[in-house]
Structure formats: structure tokens, C-alpha cells
């Protein structure tokens, strides 16, 4: 991470990536193409949420403002979120969901692998657990990218479209780290096998890590936070 990034910012970046990814994946509940896929996406969403809870709880302690995972998840505004833009983008079809999961889980696996040897023992323990989950998410996204990319004319068109639309947003993942070559070797191999064209690098939108988000995050947060904000402290 760059020298201007605090340890708290770094924790929020990790936790918020997982939290917002979980929320987007959860939106597939009851809408996935098949019931089995519905369960699979919910499982992946819960894995992401599990990591988000551990990391945001830790972040709240580091912040030392008396908050907890819930105050961080439910009471921050969009400008205070540190997630990458990729995770907040909408998923207009299943190909978008799988392209996002492919790009994100390949990155998360590499990031968690690196963090697992971190000097911060608590973060290292969380990352060590998350590596296995990310490996499974990557496997799931790879499986679908291959089938959609190398499937019918229509599935290929949609998958290529999703890859093209999302590719610019992947550059932001590698701000302040050296993981892009390893990430490219994973992702390029999958795209090639799926008969998809690897987009050329160009436009590289960014800003998520300093709180400058797309308008999509506000809508996502409105849905995610509305109950907690309307009934503060409500319990089941």
C-alpha cells in the first residue's frame, strides 16, 4: 500500500471489498438461472460476508472510536467506504456476475495469500482461512466463464461483453501492490481457454480506495442500511 494509506484504510479496503461483494451476490437470491446456482451464489456471498465481519470488527478496534462491525457496515456513508469500484458495479446479467467474480476472486486469492504471511497475526489468521474460500470462488467463476465463453453464440457474446465492460475497473485492484502479473497469468489463461478476447488496457477508473465511488454504491448502501438506520439497535 502507498505511504499515505493508514493501517485502518487498508483494513477497510479488504473488509469493504468483501462486504460490498457479498451484498451484490446476495441480490442473486431467488434470481439465479437455476436453484442450484442460487445456493452456490448465496454460499459465496456468505463466505464474503464472513471475511467482511472479521476484518471490519478488527478495523473497528483499530479505529478505537467505540464502534463495531455493525457501525462500520451500517452507519458509514458512501464517501467513507474504501472498496474498489469493481465490487459495487451492478450485474445486469449472469455473465457480469461471473466476470466480476472471476476478476475479484483471482485478486482476493492473491491478496489473502500475501496477507497470510503478514506480521499482523490477527490479519494473517483471517487471510489464511479466506484463501481456501477464494480458491473455491475462483474455481466457480472459472467453471462458468469457460462454459459461457465457449458455449453458444449468445453466451459467448454476453460473456465477452461483461469482460470488456469490467476490464477497466480491474486496474484499481493493483494500486499499491505488485499482484497484477500473477493476477494476469490466472485471468488470461481462463479467458484464452474460454475463447474470449483479453481486452486491451486503456481507461483505468479509480477512486474507490479514497472514497470516490460510482453512483451505484449509494443505491446499494441505501438497500443494505435502511433497516438498521430506520430501527437503530433493533434485534431479531
Amino acid at each position, binding site marked *: 500500500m502507498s505511504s499515505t494509506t493508514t493501517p485502518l484504510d487498508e483494513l477497510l479496503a479488504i473488509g469493504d471489498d468483501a462486504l460490498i461483494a457479498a451484498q451484490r451476490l446476495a441480490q442473486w437470491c431467488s434470481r439465479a438461472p*437455476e*436453484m*442450484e*446456482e442460487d*445456493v*452456490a451464489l448465496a*454460499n459465496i456471498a456468505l463466505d464474503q460476508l464472513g471475511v467482511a465481519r472479521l476484518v471490519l470488527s478488527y478495523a473497528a478496534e483499530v479505529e478505537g472510536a467505540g464502534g463495531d462491525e455493525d457501525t462500520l457496515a451500517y452507519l458509514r456513508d458512501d464517501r467513507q467506504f474504501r472498496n474498489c469500484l469493481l465490487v459495487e458495479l451492478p450485474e445486469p446479467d449472469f455473465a457480469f456476475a461471473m466476470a466480476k467474480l472471476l476478476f475479484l476472486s483471482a485478486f482476493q486469492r492473491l491478496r489473502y495469500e500475501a496477507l497470510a504471511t503478514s506480521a499482523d497475526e490477527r490479519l494473517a489468521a483471517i487471510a489464511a482461512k479466506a484463501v481456501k474460500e477464494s480458491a473455491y470462488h475462483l*474455481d*466457480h467463476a472459472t*467453471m462458468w466463464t469457460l*462454459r459461457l465463453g465457449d458455449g453458444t453464440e449468445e453466451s459467448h457474446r454476453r460473456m465477452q461483453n461483461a469482460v470488456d465492460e469490467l476490464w477497466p475497473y480491474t486496474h484499481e485492484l493493483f494500486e499499491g501492490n505488485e499482484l497484477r502479473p500473477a493476477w494476469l497469468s490466472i485471468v488470461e489463461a481462463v479467458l484464452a481457454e474460454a475463447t474470449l478476447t483479453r481486452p486491451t488496457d486503456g481507461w483505468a477508473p479509480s477512486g474507490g480506495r479514497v472514497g470516490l465511488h460510482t453512483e451505484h454504491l449509494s443505491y446499494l448502501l441505501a438497500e443494505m442500511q435502511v433497516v438498521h438506520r430506520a430501527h437503530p439497535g433493533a434485534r431479531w
Partner: protein
Amino acid sequence: MSREWPLWEVFVRPRRGLSHVHVGSVHAPDATVALRNARDIYTRRQEGVSIWVVPAAQITASSPDEKDAFFDPAADKVYRHPTFYQVPEGVPHL
């Protein structure tokens, strides 16, 4: 052509040393996806260490109509059960 994915029967081995037991079925377009779907649906609470999936169409099942011919003749063959042996004293694990 039906747009619905074919059905696969799922067998899970709960622990090493036990055999695979039928737990249910999943829909999937191919064997690899069937295995992943079975993992997500039937082993999310650590129910198993190994999974088999079998195309449901490949299973030949006995018919309920044949029940009498298949199973009833065994009912009165008590000598097929090992109940006529004397168990010697002090043999705990026979």
C-alpha cells in the same frame, strides 16, 4: 429439446471408512458442475469427505410392480440368517 438441466444422484461419504450414502439429487449441465452443486447443497455443514455424482438416467431401479417377486420369497427363509450357530462364551466381537 428440454431446457432443464439433467438430474444427477448424489452420494456422500460422511467419514473415512464409511461407504458413500445416497443423500439426494441435483440438476446440472455436466458432471463437473454436478459435483460443485452437490458440494454446495449437501456438504455445507461438513457432512462429508467425498462425493460421487451419477447421472440419474444411468440408474436402473427395481420396479414397485416387481416387489412381490423380488423381495417376498426371502421372507420365509429363516435359515439364511446366521441365527443357528452357538456363540461360544467369551467371544465379544463376533
